[in-house]
């Protein structure tokens, strides 16, 4: 057993209380500790990715209890790459939060941030369905704190809605797990896969209920159509760095669907009989449409970006819903890309909005560094909309290529293509209103006192560190595009490993295998 596998959970879990109790009055120290933790997490994740790239499924048995009885953590290529993505995103977001001073607008930002990382990494690594629930709760309770960080009436009310929505989701998760346990007698994912496969079709009603309940729960996290409505309000009212971090939280939902509904309720399982894909595909198509229409209709910048995240989740889940290795490869590539694109847009929005004062999409006199922000917005929007130079284009191309099956072709292609067009138009409109029309209304009325119009008189230009975070996210998107070949090869291996369900079951349930 390789003990590094549990390090991404242990490290933030130990660091967070230390930051909360020891460094709560010293923001510089807390920043340093938090950043060092995230950096260490990134290196551990890199090491784990190299380890997992060997192709073996590594199992970490807590307390060395054999698999169906004890809790296991499972490291395969999928878990490793997602933990790595989380760590990299955490570094970017932390840089921005510290440089822009967001982390000192309320208490315990860094402690909550570390707990959030612990929950996300744990959810990616766990091999037990109930443990997945526990890690979901860890990441949620940290996200509640981060969501209302900084306070304010509107934000608290949006936070309240977010909490209520997710608590209802957690209840549903428990109902699903109870149903699953009552029918199969286990909650270990590998063991579940083994038992569910043996259930004949005529006894499968309860398993199907559990599978669909689980899908609804994960769909809430992934913001899919009938339950997507919490996302725009939450992201639009959350502090911008937190919204950028939340870009990976929707991916936790996507990951959970990928894992559970491939390994346990896969397309060739008799009991569920392709049921997940049947429902996921239309839901994803409508999500994409909702996102695109939302981008067109939004009158403020933050809700518009939130809707673009909804749209990208739609594209991602369209590919997931096909449940084939090729489509999963495309989905994973698009997942990596859309996380970075969403984060880049939110971080840039923060830079622009703190200087504009209001996030209304209306012409307003240009602020400092208008051209620079316009250029960065252009790059990030190109990434999000899926236009050529950056990885969004390749991601969408791969998704389209994967949806060639006749039952997916018409709906999938038309939704993605039309949705992308609407997103491009919406983002272009926002960009031109924010940056171009602003230069036309150059002169503020000179008779009004300057200090009254702007609470922070003469907004300061962004420091290099603030810009570094955004530019790093965009550079990573460019890197994804340049290195698309090797990355795609790795992701192909990843989805092959994900669909090799016997290999997974064997690795987890193998007893007497001392590592």
């Amino acid at each position: 057993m390789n003990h590094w596998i549990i390090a991404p959970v242990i490290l933030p879990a130990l660091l967070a209380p230390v930051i909360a109790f020891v460094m709560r009055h010293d923001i510089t120290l807390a920043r340093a500790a938090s950043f060092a933790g995230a950096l260490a997490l990134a290196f551990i994740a890199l090491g784990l990715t190299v380890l997992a790239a060997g192709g073996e499924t590594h199992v970490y048995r807590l307390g060395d209890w054999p698999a169906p009885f004890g809790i296991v953590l499972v490291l395969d290529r999928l878990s490793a790459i997602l933990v790595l993505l989380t760590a990299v995103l955490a570094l970017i977001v932390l840089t921005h939060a510290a440089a822009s001073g967001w982390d000192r607008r309320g208490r315990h930002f860094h402690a909550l941030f570390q707990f959030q990382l612990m929950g996300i990494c744990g959810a990616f690594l766990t091999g037990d369905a109930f443990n997945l629930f526990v890690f979901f709760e860890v990441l949620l309770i940290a996200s509640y704190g981060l969501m209302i960080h900084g306070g304010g009436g509107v934000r608290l009310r949006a936070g309240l809605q977010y909490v209520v929505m997710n608590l209802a989701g957690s209840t549903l998760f428990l109902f699903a797990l109870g149903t699953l346990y009552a029918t199969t007698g286990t909650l270990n994912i590998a063991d579940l896969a083994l038992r569910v496969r043996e259930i004949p079709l005529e006894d499968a009603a309860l398993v199907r209920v559990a599978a669909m309940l689980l899908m609804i729960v994960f769909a809430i996290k992934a913001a899919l159509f009938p339950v997507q409505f919490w996302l725009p309000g939450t992201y639009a009212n959350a502090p911008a760095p937190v919204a950028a971090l939340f870009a990976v939280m929707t991916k936790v939902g996507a990951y959970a669907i990928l894992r559970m509904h491939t390994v346990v309720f896969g397309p060739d399982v008799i009991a569920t009989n392709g049921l997940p894909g049947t429902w996921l595909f239309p839901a994803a198509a409508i999500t994409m449409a909702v996102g695109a229409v939302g981008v067109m209709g939004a009158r403020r910048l933050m809700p518009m970006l939130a809707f673009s995240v909804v749209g990208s989740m739609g594209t991602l889940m369209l590919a997931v819903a096909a449940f084939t290795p090729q489509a999963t490869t495309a989905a994973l590539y698009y997942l990596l890309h859309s996380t970075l694109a969403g984060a880049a847009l939110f971080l840039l929005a923060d830079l622009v909005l703190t200087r504009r004062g209001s996030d209304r999409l209306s012409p307003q006199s240009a602020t400092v560094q208008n051209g620079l922000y316009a250029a960065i917005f252009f790059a990030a929007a190109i990434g999000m909309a899926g236009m050529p130079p950056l990885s969004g284009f390749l991601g969408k191309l791969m998704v389209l290529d994967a949806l060639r099956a006749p039952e997916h072709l018409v709906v999938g292609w038309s939704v993605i293509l039309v949705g992308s067009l609407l997103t491009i138009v919406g983002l272009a409109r926002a960009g031109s209103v924010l940056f171009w029309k602003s230069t036309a209304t150059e002169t503020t009325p000179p008779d009004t006192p300057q200090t009254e119009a702007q609470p922070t008189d003469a907004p300061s230009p962004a420091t290099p560190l603030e810009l570094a975070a955004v530019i790093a996210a965009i550079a990573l998107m460019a890197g994804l595009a340049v290195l698309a070949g090797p990355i795609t090869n790795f992701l192909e291996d990843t989805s092959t490993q994900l669909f090799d369900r016997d290999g997974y079951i064997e690795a987890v349930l193998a007893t007497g295998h001392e590592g």
Partner: protein
Amino acid sequence: MELVIASAVGIMTAGGIYLVLRLRAFPVILGLALLSYAVNVFLFASGRLAVDAPPILSKYADATYTDPLPQALVLTAIVISFGMTAVLVMIALGAFLENGHDRIDMEREDDAENGDASA
């Protein structure tokens, strides 16, 4: 006993859902608490119902026993839902003090404009 358990879960879930759909924070919190009670009872039942049976195997006698795992799950679920309810009450209290009312829905975009610019 099955009828009692099943109807308890059903009635509590129905009441919980009704309350969660209310407009004000207090009934919503009560509704979520009811829902968590319902799910706890449901988790108990997922290990099959047995009366007066210990949750341990005996190697000396062929005694009946009840499944211990759901009890552990319920314990975890109770702790988590307890903590979550506490957080929810605090956030709701914060929202009430900031806004002066405990309505849970958002204002229309145009009305919210003034509050936004200052935030």
